[in-house]
Structure formats: C-alpha cells, structure tokens
C-alpha cells in the first residue's frame, strides 16, 4: 500500500513537471557530479525550452541559489546521488519542495522523458560522441542513452520493447548483436562519425549555423539545435573541409572555455571563409557581473606529447628524437623534419602507449644532407586515432645536440685524405663534407691571419726603424710632422 502511495506521488509530481509550462524563463537546475546527467538534462531542457543550469562547483551552486532565491523565478531542481553541492537540496526545498527532486540515474530519467519515442545510444565513456549527438537528439526530441558493451543488449531490448526508434552511435555500435536491426553510425573515428551525423542531420534540417567544439567539454551551446562539428586541436579532416567549403553561407559558434581549438579555427576561417562567433559569457538581470560560460570537462582521449631535444648521431648520420606520450590514450605520432637545405625527411607513423616513449630516427642521408645540423624544424603529426590527424605542431629546435663522435683515428684518416687531396663522398663518410668545409674555413682563416699580420707587421717595422734611429719609444705625431717638415726643407 505504501509502495502504491509512493508511486502515485512520484507520478503526480512528474506529471506536473512534464506539463508545467511558463511564459517566463524556467530554470532547470541539475546538481550532479556525473557528466552524463548534465548532458542528458541539457538535451531535455532544450527540448522543453527551459534554461539549463548545472552545478559546476559548490560556490557556483550557492551563487545559483542566491540568484533564484530572491525572486519568483520558476525552477526545477534535480539532484543525483552524487551532487556537486550537497547543501542545495535542502535550500531549494525550502523555496518550493514540489519542484525539487532527488533521483538515481538522472541521465536515464531525462532520456526516458524525451518528447518523442526515439533513442540515441552512445558509449558511456566517450564524451565526444555524446556531444556530437546532442543537437540531433534535441532536434528529434529523442533521449540520449549511455551504455557500455556489456549492458548494450539489455538496453536495446528495453528500448525496442518501448517501441522507440533507435540510433546506435559511435564505438559501441560495433558490438550491436546481429539480431538487432537498428540504425548505426560507426566509422571508427569520432570525427568521421560526426560528419556522418551531420549529413544525416542535413537531410532533415537546413544547416545554416554550427557549433565548433573539441568534444572534450560541455557547454550549453552544445545542447541546441545547431549541429556540433568536432574539430581537432589544430586540424580538421579533409572530408569536413570539403563539407564546410560546400556551405558558403554557414556561420560558426564557439564558446569561450573550450579546449584549445584555435589552430583548427584558423584553418576553417582561412579555407572556408566562415564567420565564427564566440560566446563570451552570460549575464543575469539581478546580478551586477557577467559570468563566464559554464564549461564541464568530459572524459576524452587526450594526446599530450613531450618532445625531447633532437640529437644528431654521428655514427648513423641520423637525427634521434624521443617522444613521450603523457596523455591518457594511445597516441599516433609521425615526425617530419625540415632540414637546413630545405628538404624534408619523415618517419613512419608510430603508436605510443600512454606514458610510454618512442625514439624516432630520421636518416639525413635520405634528404641529401650528410652534414651535422645545429637547427631542425620538426613537424609533429599527432592524434588519438590511427586514421585521423588531430594536430600538427611545428617546433624549431636550435643548437641540436651531437652524440657518438667519430673515434680519433678515423678522424685523422679523413683529415689526411682531405689534406692529400683525395676526396670522400657523403655515401662513404657521412661527415666528410663537414671536414672539407672545415678545411676551407681553415684556409680562409689562415689567409686572413696572414693579411692581418702583414698589415700589423708593416706598422711595427716603422716603429722598429725609429727605435734603431735612437728612440725606444714609438714615433709620436709631433715627431712624424717634424720629419715631414725636414723632408720638405731638404727638397727645397
């Protein structure tokens, strides 16, 4: 009997919640540490024209409460089992307990309350995939369901039994059982999946504006009807570039506080001419200060590389570069060195495990350069995905270190060969050019010294003659003048 009463109460509250509409802006406040709760509630809020606010820090939570509490602003407050600020439930309850809810699995709850019977299923560990599908879910009125591979079959069974149209998106689509006939998008790349979704979106909606984002953060701009476009740190895919170029009237939005995608934005602006606007912040009518965007960091694959100073190895005439992956996922790295002679040499692409290192070796012979170099410009191609390049960083190293200098005897031999006039080719010895250059420089130096000595010596000779004439001191100007006068007088 008690259970029935509880159920009745919950249904009454939810019914009221679902159909409550107000001409005024209604705040939907979500207090949860779980990013999935935040994202799913944002999609729900957008579908119902609520102002979505999530609690990012305890202090910001208190601020939101103070913002609402002094007004008659309509709100709904939802708290998960793990709230960011545990004191807010009681505070908001005192304002209006009928609008305050505490629930487990908020993400699933909001997805189940979606406007239309549709579901998008994504991996519960990949934030970028959820970001990518959010606008489509808002547009379609569908819910976003998070799953891991183990729970997928059970979830799909449930969704099917509810008669929902299902799209399984991203990596998790690879484990959909064969007996389930569902729509899938899974190219093996978050960027190409995103593009596939854009194309699907495009069939149903005229796309005039997009939100460019890293997929590593969530901000409310993401859960709107403008499609999200995922971009790498400095790069976008060729496929995306073609798509953007095909849309000359497109405009872009970014939000201040996203992970660094400035390099990619420069590329987009330059290549496609798209205008990009940035959301700078949010202001409230009851506050004197505009607040920065609320940006939540999502679980993502991050490639952070430490590039150590290249070392030139005499014994192999190669450039060795040690690269350490300090990120949390596998890194796919390729190096290309721009050499002083203008040539490039590149390495094969290497997979580097998290916290592991790889020593790249670039052979300078192959670039027609056998001299040691003291400067090199490295082009570092990196990505968390094997198929895509997310970033290209260009780093110029000055004063390249040297190692494995030639044993002394061998050096002498080469020097003797050079001195005796016999030539060595780069293929015979990687550093013969180097010594040949040293010889030329040495000869020039000797000539310069001889000239200096000659000029200096000429002066000295004058001084010595004076000394022989009687003075130990060098000739003074006055003495020189007197001498000239005497010479003139003698001539006369």
């Amino acid at each position: 009997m008690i259970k029935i009463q509880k159920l009745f109460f919950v249904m009454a509250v939810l019914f009221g919640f679902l159909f409550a509409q107000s001409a005024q802006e209604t705040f939907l406040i979500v207090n949860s540490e779980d990013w999935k709760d935040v994202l799913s509630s944002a999609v729900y809020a957008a579908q119902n024209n609520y102002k979505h606010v999530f609690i990012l820090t305890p202090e910001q939570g208190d601020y939101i409460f103070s913002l609402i509490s002094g007004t008659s602003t309509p709100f709904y407050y939802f708290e998960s089992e793990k709230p960011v600020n545990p004191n807010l439930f009681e505070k908001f309850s005192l304002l209006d307990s009928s609008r305050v809810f505490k629930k487990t699995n908020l993400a699933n709850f909001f997805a189940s309350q979606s406007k239309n019977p549709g579901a998008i299923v994504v991996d519960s560990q990949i934030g970028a995939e959820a970001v990518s599908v959010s606008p489509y879910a808002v547009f379609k009125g569908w819910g976003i369901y998070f799953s891991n591979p183990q729970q997928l079959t059970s979830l799909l069974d449930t969704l099917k039994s509810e008669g929902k149209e299902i799209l399984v998106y991203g990596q998790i689509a690879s484990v959909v059982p064969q007996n389930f006939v569902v729509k899938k998008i899974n190219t093996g790349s978050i960027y190409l999946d995103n593009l596939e979704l854009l194309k699907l979106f495009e069939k149903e909606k005229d796309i005039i504006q997009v939100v460019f984002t890293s997929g590593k953060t969530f901000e409310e701009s993401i859960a709107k009807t403008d499609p999200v476009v995922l971009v790498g740190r400095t790069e976008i895919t060729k496929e995306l570039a073609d798509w953007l170029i095909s849309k000359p009237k497109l405009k872009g939005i970014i939000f201040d506080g996203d992970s660094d995608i400035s390099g990619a934005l420069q590329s987009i602006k330059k290549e496609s001419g798209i205008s990009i606007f940035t959301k700078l912040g949010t202001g409230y009518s009851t506050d004197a200060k505009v607040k920065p965007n609320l940006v939540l960091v999502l679980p993502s694959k991050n490639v952070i590389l430490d590039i150590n100073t290249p070392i030139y190895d005499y014994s192999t005439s190669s450039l060795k570069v040690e690269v350490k992956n300090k990120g949390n996922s596998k890194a796919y790295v390729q190096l290309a060195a721009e050499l002083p002679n203008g040539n490039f040499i590149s390495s094969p692409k290497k997979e580097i495990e998290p916290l592991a290192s790889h020593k790249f070796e670039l052979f300078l012979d192959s670039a027609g350069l056998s001299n040691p170099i003291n400067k090199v410009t490295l082009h570092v191609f990196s990505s968390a995905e094997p198929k895509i390049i997310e970033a290209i960083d260009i780093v110029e190293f000055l004063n390249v270190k040297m190692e494995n200098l030639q044993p002394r005897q061998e050096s002498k031999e080469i020097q003797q060969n050079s001195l005796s006039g016999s030539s060595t080719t780069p293929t015979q010895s990687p550093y013969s050019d180097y010594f040949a250059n040293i010889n030329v420089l040495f000869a020039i130096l000797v000539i310069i010294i001889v000239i200096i000595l000659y000029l200096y010596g000429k002066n000295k000779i004058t001084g010595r003659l004076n000394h022989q004439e009687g003075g130990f001191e060098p000739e003074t100007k006055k003495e020189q003048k007197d001498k000239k006068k005497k010479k003139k007088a003698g001539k006369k």
Partner: protein
Amino acid sequence: MKNVIIFLLIFFSLGFALPVGATVSAGTPVTLGNVPAGTAAAWGGNITRVNLTINSSTLHWQGFYGTITASLRLASGSGSDIKTMKTWNVNTLSGQVYVSRSSNIDFTALNSTSVSLDDVDSVFSFLLNSNDAAVNTGTNNANPQFYIGQYLVSQNSRPLILTFDNSSQPIWKEVVLRHASTGQPEDFVFVGIINSSGVAYNGEPAHYQLIVPENAAGDNVVTTYYFYGEVQ
C-alpha cells in the same frame, strides 16, 4: 626523395594545415597539446575574453559596459613563417559585442531581418507609451555601417541608440538588430560597437557600453543575457 614525397602527400592531403609552432633551444623539452579545457586560450583573432560589469540605469533599461581583453595570436603564414608563434596585446580593438536574451542567435539572419524601434516597444510591452520607450531612446535608420562576418549591415538601415560617456557626450553606439520574428524578446540582438579607447558613463575605461530593455519594475524573475563576440 621518397620521404619528401610522402611528407608532401601527407601535408597536402590535409588541404590546409595551418599548424601551431614554437621555437625552442636545445635542452628544452616541448610539451604539445597540454592546453587544459576550461582555460580558454586566445582564439585565432581578436576578441577572446570579456570582463563585463553591469549597471542599472532606469527601471526599463539595463546598462552594460565593459572591457574586452584581446590578444592576437599568430601562427600563420607558410614555409618558414609558420614555425614561430607570437602573442601580443591588441591596442586597437574593433568589431561588435552582441547581447541577446537568446542563447541561440542566428547570426546568418542578423543582417537581413528588418527592425525598428517600434518593434522593440511592441515586443517589450512595458516600454510602450512610456517616457523611456525605445522610440524616445534611439533613432530609426541611423546606424553606422559595419559587417557581421562577411555580411554588410548598411549605413542608416537599423535603429541606433546612443549612450553617454562621463562628459555627457553621446559617444557609445548601439545598433538594434533582430534575428527572428517570433514576437518574443529573444528575437532582438543589441549590438555594441566597440570603441578601443572609450570611457563609460562613470568615467571608467570601457570598450563598449549599451542598454537593453529590462522590466525591473514589473518583473521579479531572473532574465538571462548571452554575450557574443566575433572571431576576427
């Protein structure tokens, strides 16, 4: 030669790689990709960050003024030019700050949707017939020419509102635009023309100053305003 070709293939298959570079000396390891989310770096252009303050002026209008910290980040060019990166402050700011109740401004429609001060009074009904109605505050078809992205907003085609600096000089220009015609306050976008050396009404240095309709007398609810700039 083969390697050169491979590199060039990679490079040009990207179509338009415009990477970020840095110059370092020996013995200095370089960390790449270590820009944490949530700490916005300078975008590739002018407007990057905003430091805004707000001041209530009348019961029907709310004023905003503020400064924009801008920096220019350069990692462009080609060949040897792309290997260096510089960041420096920009002394001469230009452009606009867009303020709206809409969190989803359609920038593609801003330059093509007509608007008048009567529309403002009509939608913000608390302004209608008041002394500080929009029609008594600004002038229709009086805006300066400016661009939104690549699209031109022609001179004298939109309403202009002027506000004062601390010497009561009407130096601050605000253009009223509309991106939708649903009859809701969210349709309007108030555009502050940036002045890199401006002074706000209270004597503080500011880059923009503008006012937006707000019914402080009648409402007891929180209204949200969204601030946008354009990446140059």
